[in-house]
């Protein structure tokens, strides 16, 4: 095992957790991410192989799937984001590539993003200060790409109306975190 010690997106060795009256904001460094894009003409084959490996159908536009170990959501035309626990899937991308072979293009995305999970009854009040995602229209697993404090982020429904994951560009983790905390302080 290599000797390099990881840091979280916020630059610490432990994830940041913030509590508010009605909301918890938790930094989640413990997920591996990989993007999967179907090759032209191999879309069906890619879907088949991916399903065999992941255990679920590649989600339709705007939708996603939550399960253990693999979860995923639709990211763009013929393109998905796949997620799995980092501890067990450090090599998520490699494994996924092996599974889909020439039917798909896979890129490691684990550290392209930072992830904050927002949960609690105050969720709606806070999200409506952050972005134009309409929580009431989001079902379990649904994911939207939104503009949040000038950042392109994914908002991923973990528990309708109760919990979402927000994935943002890792380099801007501190700015994203500041926005989340600011909105929570303001709205709750």
């Amino acid at each position, binding site marked *: 095992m290599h000797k390099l010690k990881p840091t979280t997106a916020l630059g610490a060795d432990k994830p940041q957790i913030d509590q508010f009256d009605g909301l918890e904001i938790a930094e989640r460094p413990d997920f591996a991410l990989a993007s999967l894009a179907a090759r032209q003409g191999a879309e069906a084959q890619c879907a088949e192989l991916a399903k065999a490996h992941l255990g679920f159908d590649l989600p339709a536009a705007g939708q996603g799937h939550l399960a253990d170990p693999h979860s995923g959501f639709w990211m763009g035309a013929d393109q998905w984001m796949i997620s799995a626990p980092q501890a067990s899937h450090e090599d998520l991308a490699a494994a996924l590539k092996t599974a889909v072979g*020439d039917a798909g*293009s896979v890129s490691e*995305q684990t*550290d392209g993003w930072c992830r904050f999970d927002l949960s609690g009854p105050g969720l709606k009040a806070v999200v409506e200060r952050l972005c134009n995602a309409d929580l009431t229209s989001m079902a379990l697993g649904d994911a939207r790409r939104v503009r949040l404090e000038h950042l392109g982020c994914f908002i991923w429904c973990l528990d309708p109306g109760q919990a979402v994951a927000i994935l943002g*560009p890792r380099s*801007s983790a501190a700015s994203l975190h500041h926005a989340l905390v600011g909105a929570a302080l*303001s709205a709750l």
Partner: protein
Amino acid sequence: MNQINRLAGGQINRAKELSFRFDGRSFKGYEGDTLASALLANGERLMGRSFKYHRPRGVLTAGSEEPNALVELRQGNRQEPNTRATVAELFEGLEASAQNAWPSLRFDAMAVNDRFSNFLTAGFYYKTFMWPKPFWEKVYEPIIRKAAGLGSISFEEDPDLYDKGFLHCDLLIIGAGPTGLAAALTAGRSGARVILADEDFRMGGRLNAETLALGDASGSDWAAEALAELASLDNVRLMTRTTVIGAFDHGIYGAVERVQDHLPQAIADKPRQILWRIYSRKAMLCAGAMERPIAFADNDRPGVMLASAVRSYVNRWAAAPAQEIAIFTNNDDGHRTAADLIARGVKVPAVIDVRADAPAVVGAELLAGAEVIGTEGRLGLTSVTVRLANGQTRKIKCGALAVSGGWNPNLHLTCHQRGRPQWNAELAAFVPGPDLPSGMTVAGAANGQLSTARALAGGATGAIAALDDLGISASAIDVPQAEDAPIALKPFWHVQGGKSRAWVDLQNDVTVKDVKLAHQENFVSVEHLKRYTTLGMATDQGKTSNMLGLAVMAELTGKSIPETGTTIFRPPYTPVPMGTMAGRATGKHFHPTRKTPSHHWAEEQGAVFTEVGDWLRAQWFPRQGETHWRQSVDREVLQTRKSVGVCDVTTLGKIDVQGKDAATFLNKVYANAFAKLPVGKVRYGLMLREDGIAYDDGTAARLAEDHFVVTTTTANAVLAYRNMEFARQCLFPDLDVQLISTTEAWAQYAVAGPNARKLLEKVVDADVDISNEGFPFMACGEITVCGGLRARLFRISFSGELAYEIAVPTRYGDALVRALMEAGEEFEVTPYGTEALGVMRIEKGHAAGNELNGTTTALNLGLGRMVSKKKDCIGNTLSEREGLSDESGLRLVGFKPVSATEPVTAGAHLMNASGEISASTDQGYITSACFSPNLGCSIGIGFLKDGANRLGEVLRAANPLEGSTVEVEVVSAHFIDPEGERLRA
């Protein structure tokens, strides 16, 4: 004299008495008061001064359309100019001061302007102040600027927070009067998602200001009941203190919620105001109507008010504007006012009704067919002079005059997408036209349905219709019985004759005379009228003046009002604090801050950071004893070239390009060829715009037959990705290629210098061969480091030294830089920042942002040969245009000062050694310059006409901006190791 004009009753909380100060004096009021109602209750009518003539002014209205009663609210860094006393909620300790008056509100020296009003007519300033020529800017204008303006600011940073938010609904209802409430009840009960927004702090609109009954309840009680039900529905959101300021495309509305303006102290972390972006599927405008004044001589004295405002103050706020209130009207509303006043025990000396056939009044004298032709009272109305039907005049003593000239529907939002109102002769007013913003309907008074009964019905049926369009079925609610008075109005705009001026726009001091002058000078189009006289340009946006001005102009032109024109309204509906429109993204948080993986480590090293786009990058790393940045940068450069240096280059854009056609695709987007690039190799690539201009450069590394990693400049990462997606989706849709940005996923470091290999050998795993043979210049590969961590290694060099770039997943970036520095200790490795990076690339003559300035071609950059003529690629065809392929055009070359101590300056223009220094003799310009510690002098690169053929020539680098001209020698841009032996070592 405590609240001498306070009446009984009203919707104020007498249990909560509040103290406040206005214009340096202390007063008392109650919770539920506005500043205006509290001042009236205290017998204060004088509240402001007009813009131009500094005439004493009192409150005209009871709403946001107020043109007169503007004050500076609060103190210090929260000082707020031009606040309307009519909408400022009273709070304990409120401090307000008069504005645009000196030395005091009661005695304003500038009121002398009024004496000279005859010289200061509309547009007088266009006709004078031209002589003597220099006087305009040196004398006249400074005086005018000083005299102009209204309130003043503190010049200190606004300490408050502002927020933004996003809401979604099926139906947005704008205005919570009878119409809006009926609509909200209808829609709310249907289960639709409803937002009901009202600018007031108490919903109910006119129901709170009138004594009308709805069914067997009073209007305000019915409103309270309706609101209680609405509050109990989860699908309904009630937004008080929320002004819908704009109707934008496709059902998007802007709304401003005043969260804390009514609180004495700001609550930490909470916003003062919130700008909501409301995404609505349908919207109903239920904004009611605004009463309009009548123009007559001296109609601007404190005490002259709109009749509806008088009713609001008396009924809602239990504040009588005066002990004796006369009424001047052209419609039955005036009579309603009389009845309300009499009922509250306020004396009504006379009802002056321009209609000869005016209905009788109980409890007050009716002067039918009479007109007010003058008023008296310096700081407040004492009497009005009336011309009776029989032609005689009579003076009537009164402290206030309630004026009603009819009603204008509040159709402002219907115009926000350039929709034009229509004339309605019955109302003598404009009503919403056919071309409304998509998804919007209008109901109630805003739609010309002025009676309460019609308002209620309009709201209910309007909501049903709107929801029906959405496939939501709502059932009719039982609307209560309410007055359904017909419109009884005689169009009447201004009293003819009268010695003194009659005001049309009170705040901007536009009088009937000014409108006449505009007409005389052919400024007859409404837009000309407005711009020439400033009619309607005041902070009330013409809400109380535009119609009047239009009517007067119509009389003068002999045309009808609709023929004369309409005025349309633009956002915002009422003025909005600039801070509110800005929200949170200001100051340090104006843009997100992107930090590199080594950021924390660099902070530990005491690095100085610089902004590169949204990135923060280490600029240099000062060491003990270094007192000037140049010392640090020189050391970093020398040490890197002598031994080895490490630099975080993560910010370069990285794009994963995969697919069996990946190579074909890169052939299209790069000017040079990539099809034959072997796996395991990197190639420098130049990207052109379709117009043939070079816009970005970088490298593409082939990790597999069907997998490239493309790097772009930091600045163009987003643009390059967008352009590549355009090529992929729009130009070459059948190529099998997939793109995704991996910029953030990998931490990447340059390790440069003679000892770079030795250093890396200690970091990469044993089985990785990075010898010159095993891993030659421009090699690349996927390897492992530090005991098995996946990494990518590229042997590329920006510095011109033996160099590698090594990348690991970002979370390990911090650990990797520490590992590299540790491994480098024996070589005295130095971290280097963007300055040293810049110096070394200039020493090598590599183009960067300053050279890729959007006007330079590959030819200019000396890379003409890279543009392949054998294949199609973006930009190659148009790069061959005559203007871009001039053989003696600009070429990138280097410059050295003739005398080594002189500076070479970026931005200097190149002139021949002799001859004049001017634009016409311009030979080019220096793009980048620095001090080269290796050459011991400052050097530069830049573009020179026919540069390639002028090596050795001496030129002058002219920098008149900073008063210097330096002799420079034209040299090759490759100052160091032109053969490139070092990087192949």
